[in-house]
């Protein structure tokens, strides 16, 4: 099996986010980029398949700050090839990213065969316009399934996998998918593996990141952003200040007043 994991770098939302002067973008200076959580899960799911059925895992991503670290870490975890696609793109346009990645897939495998799975993260936090997985699937003419939390080969049937997809309320669905296919991974079957820094350093030393340049075909069907802003708060919480003792005492008072404690 041949698995291509398309990793996406997104701003770390634990850091404070600021709006750029034009009022329509994030201030790039103020953000720290990291691999999106669901693309980390996509990588992990690919590595799980590598361990269980011997898949070959390639990780590719469009250039972004901190990308090298993410790629070295993927390489240390077990990806055979890690590839950076230049130049950098604006993260808010899934259709543009998809057109770049479509060209990349074509370069890599011509037309993907029945041993090929393309993993993306399920959905990204910076993506106002659509999602990457289904856009890419459409551009490549491949089937798509998203919000997937498990992928296993169907025993005795080459080129088929069983995928489990989440709905709501803990309800899930089982699907059979004939490859090649694009799959949006929500969470891997296991938490992401830990990789010691020594291994990442070794990957850095071997300098194994490949690089390829692809210019996107820009289509004129983007949405028009009027403004981006930190949401105006409508019903903000009453904040309780003080040391832990004071806060705890006030909370208990509130619980009692509201009939929560007996």
């Amino acid at each position: 099996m041949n698995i291509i994991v398309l990793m996406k770098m997104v701003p770390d939302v634990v850091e404070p986010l600021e709006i750029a002067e034009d009022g329509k973008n994030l201030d790039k200076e103020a953000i720290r980029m990291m691999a999106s959580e669901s693309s980390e899960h996509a990588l992990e799911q690919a590595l799980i398949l590598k361990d269980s059925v011997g898949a070959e895992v390639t990780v590719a991503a469009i250039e972004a700050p901190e990308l090298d670290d993410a790629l070295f870490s993927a390489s240390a975890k077990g990806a055979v090839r890690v590839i950076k696609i230049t130049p950098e793109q604006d993260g808010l346009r899934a259709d543009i990213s998809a057109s770049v990645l479509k060209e990349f897939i074509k370069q890599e495998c011509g037309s993907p065969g029945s041993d090929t799975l393309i993993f993306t993260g399920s959905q990204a936090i910076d993506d106002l316009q659509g999602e990457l997985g289904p856009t890419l699937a459409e551009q490549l003419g491949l089937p798509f399934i998203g919000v997937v939390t498990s992928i296993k080969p169907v025993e005795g049937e080459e080129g088929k996998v069983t995928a489990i997809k989440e709905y709501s309320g803990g309800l899930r669905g089982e699907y059979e998918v004939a490859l090649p296919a694009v799959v949006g991974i929500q969470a891997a079957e296991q938490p992401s593996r830990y990789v010691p820094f020594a291994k990442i350093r070794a990957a850095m030393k071997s300098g194994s990141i490949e690089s390829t340049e692809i210019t996107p075909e820009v289509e004129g069907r983007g949405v028009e952003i009027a403004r981006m802003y930190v949401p105006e708060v409508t019903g903000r919480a009453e904040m309780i200040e003080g040391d832990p003792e004071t806060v705890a005492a006030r909370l208990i008072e509130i619980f009692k007043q509201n009939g929560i404690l007996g």
Partner: protein
Amino acid sequence: MNGGILVLAEQLKGEPTGVAFEMLGVGRTIADELGVQLEAVVIGGEGDEIASGLGAADKVLKVDMGDDQMPVSDTVVSILDQVSDKRSPALILIGCTNVSQGIGTRLAERRGLAHLNFCTKVNIEDGRPVFTSQLFGGKIFADATLPEDKGVVSIYPGAFPAEAGKSEKTPEVEKIDVEVPESPVVFKRFIEPEIGDVDITGYDVLVSVGRGIQNPDNIELAEELAAAMGGAVSASRPVIDQGWLPLTRQVGKSGMNVKPKLYLALGISGAPEHQEGMKNASMIVAVNTDDKAPIFDISHYGTTIDLFDLVEVLKDKLEEAKGT
């Protein structure tokens, strides 16, 4: 706006989902303000029962699916593409749910339309719909319009009132014939949530832990606090994905929808997907060191002290209070 509005009446297990009515409600408002038609598409479903419950629409377009009651997303895209050819809507509304994930995006790509995701608000300004979407875990909003007001918009569940999309009226139902293509993706079966663990939907008090709880050993702190309040421990997704608590404890979009008397959120940022499962709790109290965390916007009370400084003290005081 040059054309009507088409709503995909989303279903799960043969029932219309909440977002179907939310979309009909917001679709009705836009349609009335702009003087255009509102149509709902029902794909599959037994008889006419679902279609006849969608009276908020001017017309319901019904596509028969025979035995296939859970059409996969690629199939739905193909059906909606054909229906759109026949009806030429300006605006197509799809649920921003796990069930419909990918449909809006793929449909927009196929039809060369713009797609706006994560929409939580619509305003009409100068005769044009302006859509507000939430990004970056709910920390940033964006207002945007569609080119020529045409495109696909994914509506965030829980953002619009479902009541507004319910009507006693009986809608006109039209059967639409389309070609249903074979898909390489085949639905096999539903997997029900495992029972046996705690049913968090049945508790008056939930102590809910997020990534801020840091490691599995600290879950016990929350367990003790919950025990002191006669409640149970629930969690946000990262805690479940790490395997620190079972899936049955997950609150949110993919997890459970809970409405306890008290939801005490410890180290949870309040991402939209989490809010979806808990924002209707009678009282929400948030403990989060980041005073900008979105959880505070939907909480009744909040504090920015470190959860590890508070939990033990709170537990002791609760036990004291019970003793007296």
